[in-house]
């Protein structure tokens, strides 16, 4: 595996190997010396054309924990506004010694285009492309589910039999897309709950079950309820009428939490709008995995860098 562009292209066996490697990375992180020498002398370039402090810091922490040198390029908006094309920007970074390019962009398909076109030789890791995919987020979510729900039996296992409900703005969510693909590859069943305006069209081939409200999803007694960040500007574009109506029909709150099996977990990729898609008390409850997801993110990104490095030898 040279690049990680999408969960669509990721085989189940590969995914499980990455999750297992991430278990080892969690161990590394808990040691006295929290570093591995794997990427010593290698450079990881974090190239973020779209702001995302948390994802960028997570990749930085992962790269540093593997002893890589890290360079960061952030150009909110796009460097095209300065007249330089993406191709030129990436080739410049590679000429400066980047071995891995961690790429975040507001346009769908950018990572795939870079990986397919041979513009650079560096490994490409998709850190989120538009409303397409966010594969490391899906991997860290799968990792979090597996360790919470399977505990010590996690290693080597998939998510067979696990029921996951993904709720909210599916249409604009790369997290939802990557998760729907990966979780099903790992044997989980996936239910989506959203208003029609926030559901992609013609998804009968996605293999998922679609229901209307979060209550319909909770009726299925899911092991996992994954809430998604909803952009408030979607209201002015007519996707839904008001915050209160959204949270009434698709928000995760205490009453709904109490209807879930006690072993079920509630997830959110962050950053949260407390009180909109998830209430503050649910976010802070023991069933919430929000901070665990952040911690697991570093381990997963270490596992991805480690694996891509190993495969290129």
């Amino acid at each position, binding site marked *: 595996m040279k690049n990680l562009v999408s969960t*669509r292209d990721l085989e189940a066996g590969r995914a499980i190997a990455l999750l297992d490697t991430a278990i080892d990375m969690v161990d590394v992180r808990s040691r006295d010396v929290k570093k591995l020498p794997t990427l010593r002398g290698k450079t990881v370039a974090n190239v973020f054309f779209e702001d995302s402090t948390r994802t960028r810091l997570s990749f930085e922490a992962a790269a540093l924990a593997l002893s890589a040198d890290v360079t960061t390029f952030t150009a909110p908006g796009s460097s*095209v506004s300065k007249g330089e*094309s*993406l*191709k030129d920007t990436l080739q410049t970074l590679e000429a400066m010694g980047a071995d891995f390019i961690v790429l975040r*962009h507001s*346009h*769908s*398909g*950018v990572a*795939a*285009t870079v990986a*397919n*076109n041979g513009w650079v030789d560096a490994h490409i890791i998709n850190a989120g*492309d*538009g*409303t*397409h*995919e966010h594969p490391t987020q899906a991997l860290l979510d799968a990792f979090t589910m597996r360790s919470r729900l399977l505990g010590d039996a996690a290693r080597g296992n998939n998510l067979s039999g696990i029921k996951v409900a993904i709720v909210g703005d599916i249409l604009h969510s*790369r997290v939802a*897309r990557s998760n729907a693909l990966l979780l099903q590859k790992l044997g989980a069943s996936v239910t989506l709950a959203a208003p029609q305006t926030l559901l*992609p*069209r*013609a*998804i009968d*081939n*996605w293999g998922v079950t679609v229901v209307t409200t979060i209550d319909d999803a909770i009726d299925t007694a899911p092991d996992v309820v994954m809430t998604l960040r909803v952009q408030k500007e979607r209201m002015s574009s007519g996707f839904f009428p008001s915050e209160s109506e959204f949270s009434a029909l698709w928000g995760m709150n205490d009453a709904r939490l109490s209807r879930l099996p006690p072993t079920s977990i509630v997830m959110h990729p962050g950053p949260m709008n407390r009180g909109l898609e998830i209430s503050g008390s649910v976010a802070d409850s023991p069933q919430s995995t929000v901070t665990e997801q952040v911690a697991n993110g570093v381990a997963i990104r270490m596992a991805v860098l480690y694996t891509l490095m190993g495969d290129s030898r």
Partner: protein
Amino acid sequence: MTILIRGASLMGGDTSDILVDGDIIREVGRISSSADRVIDAHGLIALPGLVDLHSHLREPGGEGSETILSGSRAAAAGGFTAVHAMANTSPVADTAELVELVAERGRLAGYVEVRPVGAVTKNLGGEQLADIGGMARSAAAVTVFSDDGRCVGDALLMRRALEYVSTFGGVIAQHSQDPRLTEDAVINEGRVSSELGLRGWPSVAEESIIARDVLLAEYVGARLHVCHVSTAGSADVIRWAKKRGIRVTAEVTPHHLLLTEDRALAYDPLFKVNPPLRTAADVEELRRAVADGTIDVVATDHAPHASASKDCTWHDASFGMVGLESALSVVQHALVDAGHISWSDVARILSVVPAEIGKVGGYDAPLEAGSKANITLVDSSHTSVWDASRLHGRSTNSPFAEISLPGRIMSTIFNGTETVIDGTVVAPELVRKT
């Protein structure tokens, strides 16, 4: 100068000789006399010179991607003898001076008749009518008006445009795309847009504008031409309108007759086009709509773009594909070889009817004695894998690379002048006019 074409199959039918004398077809039949030039056309199909209702020649303003000369050469290579040059140049073709300049440069290049299309609204702004009367009465005698690239979205302005253009006997060629329903849209809305996370261009954005426009055309008694029909639903609306007696004509592009949205799955910008590639069901229905006469013509929407506009991300890429050289091959493959139409229908949809819609003279009696000597000879038995080296324009953004396509243009004769000989485009200095 006389040219004798020996043994060509006339529009796929009887084998005959054709004698060209000057710019006129002198005689068709068994001809014993000789000529200055003799073309052995045994095994080839003779068609009337092809007429494209929809090309972007980019001059003035976009000479980096195409010029009137380079686009004319591409047209000749594709068997065309007349092309309509769309108005979205820079500056926009919205005045008599500009359309006369385009027509004159086309005449000087000498490969094809370049018929300028005039803008409907000033600077394609969608607010105020362009100098329609001035362009109609100019030396270029414009009859087709279009804001192509943009839709005349405002219903009242469209009504006025239909009425005003009909005053001069012209036609509005509408780019049917509801602007609000397609904001930031870059691909067909459906299975593929959902998978790729790209903003979708819903079929209803085309169909609803066509429905509105045919009703407006009926109401004001005007003629309407619908550009690049891309959905099954659009074909239904047009079929209904024709049945009702509304004076509407429609075109489909070769790429919408062959390619589907699946081509975009790897985000390759070569397949980014407006309207977008649709589904296999749409392709099938568009083929049927050509066969039953609902769609009148095939037009290329030849849209050259410099390589930097395609060697980039899907989002940053320009919309459009070149199509002049490949048009007849795609039509043969998608319509003739697939059993939908005959070669005489090809003459109808690629020459006679587009000329009629654009009021281009000399195409109403194809391959008959006394007609203008606009002739294309095709080797329909030839099959080859398409590649960019076949292109004669300045840009190489063809979506058909690596696809095996039938047919090869062996000869093109424009007003009695050979522009393609033995499959090779004639050098510019040999066809240039003064």
